[in-house]
């Protein structure tokens, strides 16, 4: 390779980039970040299990984390395997061992510490259980499985093995989300009483097309059959098939419904969902799903609405919105979609509610939060016109605020950092298998509710391991 002017050797670049991040640390940084940016005490040998699109997203996030050695790559498609070998070689200047079969990899490779699993959903549980039983710590993409039984098996295997099992709900390690929950919702309680939650993932129809591939790269039929695919289209588009995945509510909705449950500190008591194949009529899974959840939380009843649409992007993409008597926080992994609103006529404080003596910080007013740099005030919204008002009871537009900064890493990196820090004993997992199961469990009932057109009132057994 020619040494072009800006062609900094990758290792040098990564070391400089890491040093830059470390130098930017400030007071109060959570352990997950501090641990990840410190010099690693032990090299962790990692197996990459599944190196398709999501596997590559995870690798892009992992290659910035010091102290990892990517020892093996496993994927049934030689095209993905080759990409995995190339990606590792680009970082480490040495090739990992490549395997088509996970059993062969686990039987052959010595010294592996962890597996990062990004295979199709119906393989998550078998692959996770195999790796845990082989003595590896596991980071597995969400959904845990395409079935609740598969997810249960992962919890059991993790707890039986004593190994760590982190599930890829990466927002749980995102500093923007942790700050919002810890400081704004629980700390300063700027939303007041949260009564409603609204979330969505709206994706344009043109972004929801079948994934294409070059015909010359087709996997042999016997290999596809061995690994549970009837043909190459199903291998490339497994998210459309009921036996292989949970569909859009699982692929996309699981991220946000997990945030509902995490932020509310509760799981829903009941569910009603509806869905249809309104556009992609030949797909097994619904192309649009809407779900209503009812919660009983310590602060009262909460009703949550979620929609996942693969037929339109209108309405702001993807976010979770927590709506309270004093304010609303609409948060998204996409920082440009994050908005915070203060009610212009907030509910009066209930004098009978005692101040929480265990609050991490004393509750701050909106102005106090702005003064301390914990919120940014947005430009004032235009005043409503007096002409043409159709109802004198229309509320004045709320004041707008924003979070004070952005995550300076790939979105999955903090969650992976947390996983590897936990392996080193320097952190606790932010989303272990049991907690992930508790949050994911209601999601497995969305498609059944929509198919049966019946509400589901959850029993404890339905939502437990």
């Amino acid at each position, binding site marked *: *390779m*020619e040494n*072009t*002017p*800006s*062609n*900094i050797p*990758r290792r040098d*670049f990564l070391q400089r980039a890491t040093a830059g991040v470390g130098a*930017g*640390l*400030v*007071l*109060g*940084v*959570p352990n997950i*970040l501090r641990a990840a940016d410190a010099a690693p005490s032990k090299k962790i040998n990692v197996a990459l299990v599944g190196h398709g*699109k999501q596997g590559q997203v995870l690798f*892009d996030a992992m290659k910035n984390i010091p102290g990892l050695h990517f020892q093996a790559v496993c994927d049934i498609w030689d*095209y993905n395997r*080759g*990409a995995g070998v*190339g*990606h590792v*070689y*680009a970082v480490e200047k040495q090739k990992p061992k490549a395997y088509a079969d996970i059993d062969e990899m686990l039987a052959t490779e010595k010294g592996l510490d962890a597996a990062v699993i990004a295979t199709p959903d119906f393989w998550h549980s078998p692959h996770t259980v195999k790796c845990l039983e082989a003595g590896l710590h596991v980071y597995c993409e969400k959904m845990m499985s395409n079935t609740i039984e598969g997810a249960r098996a992962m919890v059991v295997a993790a707890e039986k093995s004593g190994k760590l099992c982190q599930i890829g709900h990466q927002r749980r390690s995102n*500093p*923007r989300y*942790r*700050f919002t929950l*810890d*400081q704004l919702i629980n700390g300063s309680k700027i939303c007041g009483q949260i009564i409603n939650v609204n979330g969505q*993932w709206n*994706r*344009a129809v*043109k*972004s929801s*097309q079948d*994934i*294409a*591939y*070059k015909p*010359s*790269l087709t996997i042999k039929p016997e290999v596809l059959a061995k690994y549970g695919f009837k043909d190459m289209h199903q291998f*490339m588009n497994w998210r459309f098939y009921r036996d292989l995945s949970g569909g859009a509510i699982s692929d996309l909705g699981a991220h946000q419904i997990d945030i509902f449950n995490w932020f509310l500190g509760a799981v829903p008591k009941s569910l009603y969902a509806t869905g249809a194949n309104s556009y992609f009529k030949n797909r097994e899974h619904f192309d649009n799903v809407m779900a209503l959840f009812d919660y009983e939380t310590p602060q009262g009843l909460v009703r949550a609405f979620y929609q996942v649409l693969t037929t339109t992007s209108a309405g702001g*993409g*993807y976010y979770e919105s927590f709506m309270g008597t004093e304010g609303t926080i609409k948060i998204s992994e*996409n*920082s*440009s979609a994050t908005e915070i609103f203060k009610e212009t006529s907030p509910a009066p404080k209930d004098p009978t509610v005692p101040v929480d003596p265990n609050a991490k*910080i004393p509750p701050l007013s909106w102005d106090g939060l702005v003064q*301390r*740099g*914990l919120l940014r005030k947005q430009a004032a919204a235009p005043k409503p016109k007096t002409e043409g008002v159709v109802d004198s009871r229309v509320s004045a537009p709320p004041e707008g605020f924003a*979070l*004070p*900064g*952005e*995550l*300076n890493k790939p979105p999955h990196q903090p969650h992976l950092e947390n996983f590897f820090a936990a392996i080193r004993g320097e952190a606790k997992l932010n989303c272990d298998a049991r907690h992930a199961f508790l949050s994911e469990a209601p999601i497995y009932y969305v498609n059944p509710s929509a198919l049966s057109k019946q509400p589901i009132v959850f029993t404890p057994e339905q939502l437990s391991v």
Partner: protein
Amino acid sequence: MKHTTTITTLLAASTALFLINCKGGGSSTSGGGTSGGTPGGDPLAVEFPPELIEGTPKPMNVPNLVQVPEKAPTFLVPKGTALLSKGKKVTSSDDNPIIGTLDLITDGDKQAGEGYFVELLDGTQWVQIDLEKSAAVHAVCLWHFHSQRRAYHDVIVQISDDPEFKTGVTTVYNNDYDDSSKLGKGSDNPYVESRFGLIADGKGTKGRYVRLYSMGNTSNEMNHYIEVEVYGIAQ
């Protein structure tokens, strides 16, 4: 990622790290899917691939970003202009691509999807097409990667008769507005990738070799090419 100045901010009593981003600025002229070319010429007959977008787009924090045109651009070239690059040899600063092979760049297949693109290392990388003899280049059509909306950084197109690109180099397109690739500051605008790609005006520049640079993109650090087509009149 490029073009982002980060300033740390102290969050007292906070448990989180944030960086406040101040986006850089840049000058601009033209960008992706541009219309133009040789006045009075014939429309360039480019075959555009079908649109196939996958997944949710990632934010593109790039200033003066030219959005995807609503219809195919019209670009005029002198009579007699022909496709010169199909099947021609491609070399690269990364001689061991991570995904795919360099011959994909001139194989005539511009489709999105797996197997149609070559992925090169991060940093500033180039690919170079040998037209086998000098030509007056009137258009360079370029598709980096169009199954996801993204913008590539520091897209630079140069033409020369010197295979080393040390002498007689003419830059016909450059959107490296902050000179981060150290090849000179450009005045063209960054653009969003699409099935329409980019048509860079070759302006009749004479040369046997066409070299194209980039430095990662708004979705990841890597460099990609699906296809490059060089149109001109052989000398």
